[in-house]
């Protein structure tokens, strides 16, 4: 665990140094940053948008936006958090343009099905995937966002606060509301209440 933390910290410092070079006009340094963080950015876009093609488009938009505004990067932020904020804002813009409808089935179903062991497991997982999809789709955007960032992306509260522009207390409050809603609805749907 300590070694993982040390490695992460080392990577974060390395990324900051690359961004510092990118800010001086070094495109190759920025290309390295893009390669290092492409999986993360694409993954987050996919969770927010639910469509593979849209997620890849949105991720490209995010890196283009980052390069256009590389001079505005503040090294007090980690590069990962900065990129997450950009892609989150772009993904939310796309969602609002399409009326807020989120098609999460592709994202959720695919991920939950990845470890299926047999026909009954597949059916159960598909059912759970549909439930998760439905519950997230009807949730208000601000709750869905923090739930995805915390309980699917496993980000820290402080990072979520920076990404969403809310303070930590508000993030915790929204997270509590989102989890409560999700849990209550989950119990209703699964017949436990």
């Amino acid at each position: 665990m300590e070694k993982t933390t040390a490695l992460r910290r080392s990577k974060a410092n390395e990324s900051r140094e690359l961004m510092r070079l990118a800010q001086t006009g070094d495109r190759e340094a920025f290309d390295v940053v893009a390669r290092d963080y492409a999986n993360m950015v694409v993954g987050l876009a996919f969770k927010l948008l639910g469509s593979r093609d849209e997620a890849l488009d949105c991720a490209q938009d995010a890196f283009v936006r980052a390069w256009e505004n590389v001079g505005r990067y503040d090294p007090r932020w980690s590069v990962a958090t900065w990129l997450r904020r950009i892609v989150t804002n772009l993904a939310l813009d796309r969602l609002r343009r399409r009326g807020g409808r989120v098609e999460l089935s592709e994202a959720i179903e695919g991920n939950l099905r990845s470890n299926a062991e047999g026909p009954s497991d597949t059916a159960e997982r598909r059912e759970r995937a549909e439930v998760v999809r439905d519950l997230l789709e009807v949730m208000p955007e601000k709750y869905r966002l923090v739930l995805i960032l915390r309980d699917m992306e496993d980000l820290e509260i402080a990072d979520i606060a920076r990404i969403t522009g809310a303070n930590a207390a508000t993030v915790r409050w929204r997270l509590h509301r989102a989890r409560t809603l999700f849990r209550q609805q989950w119990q209703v749907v699964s017949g436990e209440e």
Partner: protein
Amino acid sequence: MDCAGVRRYLDAYAAGELSGRRRQDVAEHLENCTRCTEEVRDYAEARETLLAAGRSAVLPGPGFFTGLSSRLDEVDKRTGRTAAHRPVRWHVVSGAAAVAAAVLVIAAYLVPVYVMPPGPEPSMATAIDDGQEPSQTALAAAEEGAGVSPRRMPVLEPGIYTPRSYNVPVTPYSTVSTQDAGGRSFFGPSQPMPRFTFPRQMIEGTASSQADSVPVADYEALRARMRALEERIDALERARHAPATP
């Protein structure tokens, strides 16, 4: 801590987000409460489901980077950056430019920076028990243990309006403690009912030659104006106390 006090934190406990005294209080309560223990288990299961759903199988292929490179080239052409980039050689920057930059940096530290407060949020005074999100200031104050519940706040009631001032009685709520982090008092049952007095100019914005008193029929409009004034006051206080953003 009883069930009502603990429920607010059960999801955070299940996710391992609590620490210190709060974590200990919740753990102690769970030792003797099966219902809350089940709730923690439910939260943990929900979180596992979401985490499993979050492990993305979508990865960018080679086409992604080729496409991205073309788009970045277009940005470079549009902004005048050349394809073969060389880092800026700082030693060729003239001495005058370096001095000018230093003067600007010093000036930036000497000039106070005012952070614009975030956009208007629901006022604590009108927050209802369910549905409406309390203000960020209120939530932060509640977390710091100022004793203010973000959910139960006094609601403005109709009052008697006299010339030159508007007196609005406040209905106290039993769950509200006496003071918030900013030192404003919220009124518990043992406190005398206070009256807010707003100068007429603050309500109406400018000096007016209109009649001084407010007809009862205009009560709803007055209430809306007072709510707007309260939000302006909250925004000003937040701006005064808000730390500079990084």
